[in-house]
């Protein structure tokens, strides 16, 4: 069976739903959202705490409420939302294979928006040895167990990671009556510089990492290594939550042969969020693992304009310089500037650093020439996106070589201490 649509949006999270709402205002039911879960909304569906909607809806709501709002905005605008509909592969340059209880079909579109999000690396992906007991989760799984299925979690939890999402895990554990006894992170930056510092009432051990999970049927403890002394000690617990350490859900981008960015591991996009394949676009955490939901939603709004220009035949396809970054910066998004193209979402580049800088001085260099430099009044901190005005690179020569973004004052010795 073949179905033809104007735009197919893969993924009904904040990015996909917001893109669909914006597109449907022009294209109505020519916009089809394909969501593999039984409900649209993406991660916010099960992230049952306040903290959503600030930049896009100018509201401060809970995850589930946010998911419902975005869903109703997209369907009110006229987009069709197909749930329990998994996109499993490509059937052509702009054709998708879809499985749902309604059948196996091919969806052909004039434009495709990939908005498949990002996930946390689970324990095996972090290559942590030990037994394979029950009680080991990612935050995503934990929150679904607690908020969607009302399951009992254990009594004592160790949280691996200390990013924004880790605090979300703390809230969920407390809600489920499980005491977070320790947060461990290899990072040592300002907020966590003191070993044993207590945040949110949870002891934080900076410069440590989990080296083993113990327990045959249920977790009984984890072994934690102090990265400074190399010493191990055992922390009794019955629950371990592996938080953050994001990887884009990039299977379709890869199997479709899109050019990927080595830093984000998502598709490489220009400032209008077009990928390397004409007619295929991307938005949300697939492109920047991981930013907050409102930023994913703003991507959705932004990509809609590019998609409409593509459908109208007025899209700019001029090649332009590529953006790279140097350690301790791990990635930058978007990665391509096009002559005459739009400025990125909110006029900012998104960057990820692995080291803390209180007042970062960011420089951009093209063909050996410094083309921009900016001192920011906000810190660059690991574990969250750090934003830099696009003006930093706006002076790039459109016909020149790649632009490299760097934190000034970083010598080579420091550069070598990249993530291992």
């Amino acid at each position, binding site marked *: 069976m073949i179905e033809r649509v104007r735009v197919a949006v893969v993924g009904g999270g904040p990015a996909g739903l917001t893109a669909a709402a914006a597109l449907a205002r022009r294209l109505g039911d020519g916009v089809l959202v394909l969501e593999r879960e039984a409900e649209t909304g993406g991660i916010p569906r099960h992230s049952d705490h306040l903290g959503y909607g600030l930049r896009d809806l100018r509201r401060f709501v809970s995850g589930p409420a946010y998911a419902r709002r975005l869903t109703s905005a997209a369907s009110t605008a006229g987009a069709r939302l197909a749930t329990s509909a998994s996109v499993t592969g490509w059937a052509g340059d702009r054709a998708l294979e879809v499985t*749902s209880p309604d059948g196996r079909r091919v969806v052909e579109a004039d434009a495709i928006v990939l908005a498949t999000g990002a996930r946390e690396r689970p324990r095996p*992906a972090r290559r942590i040895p030990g037994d*394979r007991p029950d009680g080991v989760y990612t935050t995503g799984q934990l929150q679904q*167990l607690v908020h969607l299925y009302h399951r009992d979690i254990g009594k004592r939890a160790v949280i691996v990671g200390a990013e924004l999402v880790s605090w979300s895990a703390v809230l969920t554990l407390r809600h489920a009556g499980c005491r977070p006894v320790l947060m461990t992170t290899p990072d040592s930056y300002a907020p966590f510089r003191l070993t044993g510092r207590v945040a949110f009432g949870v002891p934080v051990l900076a410069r440590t990492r989990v080296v083993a999970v113990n327990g045959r049927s249920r977790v009984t403890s984890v072994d934690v290594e102090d990265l400074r002394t190399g010493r191990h000690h055992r922390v009794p617990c019955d629950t371990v939550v592996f938080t953050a350490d994001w*990887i884009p859900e990039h299977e379709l981008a890869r199997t479709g042969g899109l050019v990927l960015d080595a830093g984000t591991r998502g598709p490489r996009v220009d400032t209008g969020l077009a990928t390397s394949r004409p007619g295929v676009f991307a938005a949300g955490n697939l492109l920047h693992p991981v930013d907050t939901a409102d930023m994913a939603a703003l991507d959705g709004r932004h990509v809609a304009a590019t998609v409409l220009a593509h459908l109208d035949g007025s899209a700019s396809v001029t090649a332009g310089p590529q953006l790279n970054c140097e350690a301790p910066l791990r990635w930058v998004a978007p990665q391509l500037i096009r002559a005459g193209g739009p400025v990125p979402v909110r006029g900012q580049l998104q960057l990820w650093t692995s080291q803390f800088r209180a007042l970062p001085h960011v420089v951009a260099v093209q063909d050996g020439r410094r083309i921009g430099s900016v001192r920011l009044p906000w810190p660059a901190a690991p574990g969250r996106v750090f934003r830099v005005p696009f003006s930093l690179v706006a002076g790039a020569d459109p016909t020149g070589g790649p632009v490299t973004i760097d934190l000034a004052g970083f010598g080579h010795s420091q550069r070598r201490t990249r993530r291992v």
Partner: protein
Amino acid sequence: MTTDFDIAVVGAGIVGAAIARLLGGTSLTVALIEARDDVGDGTSKANTAILHTGFDATPGTLEARLVARGYAMLGDYAAATGIPVERTGALLVAWTDEQLQTLPALRGKAERNGYTGCELIESDEVYRRVPALGPGALGGLTVPGESITCTWTTNLALAIDAVNRGVTLLRGRRVTGVEVGPDATRLTCAGGDVTARWVVNAAGLGADVLDGLFGHARFTVTPRRGELFVFDKLARPLAPCIVLPVPSKAGKGVLISPTIYGNVMLGPTAEDLEDRTATGTSERGLAFLLDRGRELMPQLLEEEVTATYAGLRAAIDRDDYLIDVDALHRYVLVGGIRSTGLTAGMAIAEHVGGLLGEALDLTPRPYLPDPPRMPNLGEAGVRPYQDAARIDADPEYGRIVCFCERVTRGEIRDAYRSPIPPADLDGLRRRTRAMNGRCQGFYCGAQLAALSGSPGDFS
């Protein structure tokens, strides 16, 4: 003493299940007794799942004969039941001059084992076949017959077949005592004693202990741990065939193999332990594998790891299987099935049948049920989510609940309705692949826990 069964087979791994299936096809009454809550929950669940030709076995041994025979038997049985098999072939790669010089001898050995398909190839042909190999490969030996399969489906098919033939499967019954009487043997089990005229010991890692309960003291099982990495499916193009090291005294060494589920495997280690339950991975083992992997195929290390696990080989202090009939005690030992039991299982059963045939009437019953049709877990075959006609007939095959492995609610339901339903979430994983994918439950874990927690919804 009243006798419950003519024969009790202890251990429902591949070997015990294959033996029970064979005996179940006669007019004898048979019990298959398993300590764990599920079949195939011991060594048979955690191996490299290669269907071995037996090219590198020690010629003249029982193992060499039964591996070659088992290769053919399991191949046929797989075709009849739908156990997935991919005929990928293997390539032994020589990285040193010494290894290169061993290759012709290995080909000779293969021929002495009756396997004539091996060919010597030059270094550029090695790279043509596996372009992602690291630098330094000097040459290779092809083994076109080596294949990959699914150990979970194999064990389950044999056990279901046995049950369909009338075998009584007793799960959760660890044999802890043996009392040999004049006509029958009483097996003391947690959960209820069992009496049988004959007993077959297919207890894998526990075979020496059970053998001791029969009064023997002839061997000791040493658990030899093998740790493994499973890499993401997106890495699969890197490994078009099984890449084997040239075997040395130290063992078979570290291989890279595609898996039947579409992943790439790196391992195993080989380390003798004391603890027969130590199926965890170790920091040292994983670090060793990553170092080896970096040399063998640097690009593989750039890919995400989907799973790590360890299996325990039941190694014994001799270089062959130890299969022996003690007619006086009406007892058969099937021990030391160390690293080839998946392949050889059916041939081991046939061999045991031959030995037992001297004491018992093993004439097959007429009208045996057909072998079971197993759900396809293989990535190369058609899976339900891809099967338009099947989804049209039953929409539950279109409702994907594990996104990474594309397992549908229909398959979960079928697993619970099968003759040997899963006992827990891990049993469901082995029957369907659910939760075995790259997210390891980030997306689907909660829903699957709910489904497995209320299997009644499916009955």
